[in-house]
């Protein structure tokens, strides 16, 4: 939270500081739109914030985010160096210290039909990354066979704690635990979310034996890591493109255990996607972990094995 406050204009900072502490601790998103009231999402709810830091459902009473503030926020987020964010402006989000992510929208600039970047940024969505240690403990026992880590696919709809789980798995494997000895872990962190790197240094604890390739395309990054860092376990977020599938396939046959994640509600749904479907069909993964929000963020809906038989049906919630 402190890192987030540091990049906000003073006006927004003081309003957020005035929020009730119960809300502040469960803050998930801060949404800022030019000439619109400041909106926050916390827990499962959302609301506008008045200039005195009170929550309200009336948009008219909310504190207005002016153009001046928008310009200031962008300057602070970019450290007055917009040129350093070209890639980020193309992708539409910026990762800041602490691994938090700021989604942006505004006027898109095209270059020969392709998105070149966003000018006049008017909408900001600040997503606060939460680090929850120990969440992987409930799934770890099912991820090993004879002490060897298994290829695992984590399936989850957005905002169900997929990245948090992956990060904790990386940390647990890297440190070693009662289920396995410590292993070398390689993370390809295309969106700088898993390790939240700043200038190449992980801002989150991903373990002492973990190497991170930050902001690297997944497919290329996986191959690079295998060649250069010889990891025992490779962890990647959000596999989906055809080249990612190929890379996963290759990594698996290079003797590296791959743990990756995909958006989806269930194995059957993910199996319909071209790339992942092929991988599932060929039995690339030995474990599937399905997450949901049924009992709060991070509910483990079920764990399946290679034949899609349920290994364990246990509802685990790590946040109330």
């Amino acid at each position, binding site marked *: 939270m402190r890192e987030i406050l540091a990049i906000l204009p003073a006006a927004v900072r003081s309003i957020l500081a005035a929020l009730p502490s119960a809300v502040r601790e469960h803050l998930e998103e801060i949404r800022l739109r030019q000439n619109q009231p400041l909106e926050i999402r916390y827990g499962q709810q959302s609301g506008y914030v008045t200039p005195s830091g009170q929550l309200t459902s009336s948009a008219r009473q909310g504190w207005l985010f002016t153009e001046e503030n928008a310009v200031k926020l962008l*300057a602070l987020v970019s*450290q007055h*160096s917009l040129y350093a964010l070209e890639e980020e402006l193309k992708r539409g989000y910026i990762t800041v210290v602490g691994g938090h992510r700021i989604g942006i929208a505004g006027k898109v600039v095209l270059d020969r039909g392709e998105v070149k970047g966003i000018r006049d940024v008017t909408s900001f969505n600040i997503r606060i990354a939460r680090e929850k240690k120990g969440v992987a403990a409930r799934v770890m026992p099912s991820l090993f066979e004879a002490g060897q880590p298994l290829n695992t696919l984590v399936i989850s709809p957005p905002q169900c704690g997929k990245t948090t789980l992956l990060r904790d798995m990386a940390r647990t494997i890297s440190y070693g635990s009662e289920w396995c000895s410590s292993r070398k872990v390689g993370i390809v962190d295309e969106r700088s979310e898993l390790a939240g790197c700043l200038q190449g240094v992980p801002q989150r604890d991903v373990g002492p034996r973990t190497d991170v390739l930050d902001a690297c395309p997944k497919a290329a990054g996986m191959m690079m890591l295998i060649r250069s860092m010889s990891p025992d376990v490779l962890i990647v977020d959000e596999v989906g493109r055809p080249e990612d599938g190929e890379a996963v396939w290759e990594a698996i046959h290079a003797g590296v255990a791959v743990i990756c994640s995909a958006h989806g509600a269930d194995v059957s749904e993910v199996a319909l996607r071209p790339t992942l479907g092929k991988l599932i069909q060929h039995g690339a993964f030995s474990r599937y972990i399905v997450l949901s929000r049924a009992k709060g963020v991070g509910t483990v809906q079920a764990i399946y094995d290679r034949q899609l038989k349920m290994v364990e049906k246990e509802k685990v919630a790590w946040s109330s």
Partner: protein
Amino acid sequence: MVKLIGAVLILFSASMVGWQIGRYYACRPQQLRSLLVALQMLETEIVYGMTPLHRAFIKVGNRVSEEVGRVFLQAAELLVTEKAHSAEDSLRQAMSRHWPQTALRKQEGDVLASLGQVLGSSDREDQQKHLRLAVTHLRGLEEEARVDQAKYEKMYKSLGFLGGLLVVILMF
């Protein structure tokens, strides 16, 4: 005897004044060169290194001559401590503090200040254009400064001495 000491003093101080003015003409091209080098380094940092502005300022500030470097170091500090709310503001504040101690004039200050208005607020291509423009501008000024140096440096130095001498002669 007193008269003699007075004469020596006058001669000495008059030559010193002349020497100072002459030195100003000698320093200006040198510092302009420093500023040019600084902007070219800034271009490399921004266009190829994609270094955040405050760190680029520090890098550049540490590598060019002290008088010019101070401006960049101060600007970087203002940015980091959030005492300046924009890149332009940081440069303006830094310049208002350190510019008078340099041999540089308002013209060069204006070039730097107008560069500050766009610094950091656009993509790399655009930054490069603006930096190059500023460099060309400064090159012109440097040329002028060199001509001035050739014309006035020696002149003021001798003028100081000769002026002092004139007063001494009139005294006797």
